[in-house]
């Protein structure tokens, strides 16, 4: 299927770019570690388990923010997005390629973050890992299209966080809930719902964001 090949080609391109530039991923890794350490210092010694899990999610959220802000920078800085839009490619494939690539970066950052969290705070449960995985999909799906919107205008790196945070609040709720509650199933189902609904919306409407 050429659609799948397009997505793969585009995602590979992003991974290759990051491999060459080595800007975004190291920053994300360092940032998430530093944030967790900062939170450790910021929390009083007798803080509850719930509070520290909440902070894990904040760290993940802001790391995702850091990573996705740069999602469309190469396309925007050199107007290469025009080149992609001109091609007979389904525009949603551009979005999906970005999602796959940013998911890879975010997952790489979490491979570092979750063990670090276990070290600094307390052990990470399976429900947390499941929640993180589901949340990642939602964050990247929504982040990719918002990044494209922000990239179209001025002050793009300032604008993206403003667009991203309100939409990510339900994910925060779902994620923390799954990690903390006795019945994580409901929260995981909610995260899956968020992912499904917003991914479909983003997939269908990306075309309209990059064309006039």
């Amino acid at each position: 299927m050429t659609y799948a090949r397009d997505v793969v080609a585009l995602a590979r391109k992003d991974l290759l770019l990051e491999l060459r530039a080595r800007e975004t991923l190291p920053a994300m890794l360092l940032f998430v570690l530093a944030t967790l350490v900062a939170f450790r210092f910021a929390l009083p010694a007798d803080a509850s388990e719930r509070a520290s899990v909440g902070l894990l999610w904040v760290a993940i959220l802001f790391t995702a923010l850091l990573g996705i802000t740069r999602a469309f920078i190469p396309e925007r800085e050199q107007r290469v997005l025009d080149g992609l839009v001109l091609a007979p490619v389904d525009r949603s494939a551009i979005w999906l390629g970005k999602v796959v690539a940013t998911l890879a970066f975010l997952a790489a950052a979490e491979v570092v973050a979750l063990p670090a969290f276990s070290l600094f705070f307390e052990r990470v449960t399976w429900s947390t890992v499941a929640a993180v995985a589901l949340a990642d999909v939602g964050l990247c799906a929504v982040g990719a299209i918002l990044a494209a919107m922000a990239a179209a205008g001025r002050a793009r790196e300032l604008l993206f966080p403003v667009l991203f945070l309100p939409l990510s609040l339900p994910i925060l709720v779902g994620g923390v809930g799954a990690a903390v509650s006795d019945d994580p199933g409901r929260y995981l189902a909610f995260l899956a719902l968020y992912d499904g609904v917003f991914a479909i919306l983003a997939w269908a409407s990306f075309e309209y964001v990059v064309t006039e």
Partner: protein
Amino acid sequence: MAVAAAVVLVAGFALALLWAPEDADQGPSQRIFYLHVPIALTAYAAFGWGAWKALRLLWTGNQRYDLESYTAVHMGTIFGTLTLVTGSIWARTSWGVWWSWGERQLVLFLILFLFYAAYFMLRFSLPDGPGRARISAVYALFGVVLIPISFLAIRLAENLIHPVVFTRDGPQMSGDMFFTFCVCLAGMLLLAGTLYLNELAGKRLDLKLRDLRESLELG
């Protein structure tokens, strides 16, 4: 429409203040409910209308829908802000606090306020044209999907965010109260409609003026 709005609103207020029976639990402060909930519902209606117009824009490409969608979202944001204000006042008069995380509507509108405030920032950063219209439209669609999703999230997390200590009026209103409520709701919707048409007409006039000015300069 303006006249109808004025009449219905005044009638609604009169009913709310004078005629509706006093609530057993909360006393006179409960009357702000007749203001707060219709404003909230009107905000939802405005956001929904904006999303509908956004969909029409993406579907047909007719640029007129851009202005209509924007104005509707603008109305929604105004009424949303009023919801937060009236909700806060109600919380203060009922329970003595300016804010309550247990209050679902309030939290929902806080999220929506953040979202739609970003709408304007987004719009402001984009150059005028079909591109801005499309991006705004897509964002408005995201907004209307966010409403039920956020509501679900808040419901799910009620005990996480804040234990629900206070309860308030549900749909179990007496017949008289319900009638008053409906009148106020109708009044709010008419008010929103009037403001919407007003702003739309004003903006359209601005555009025509700009076109005229340009034609004069060139011809």
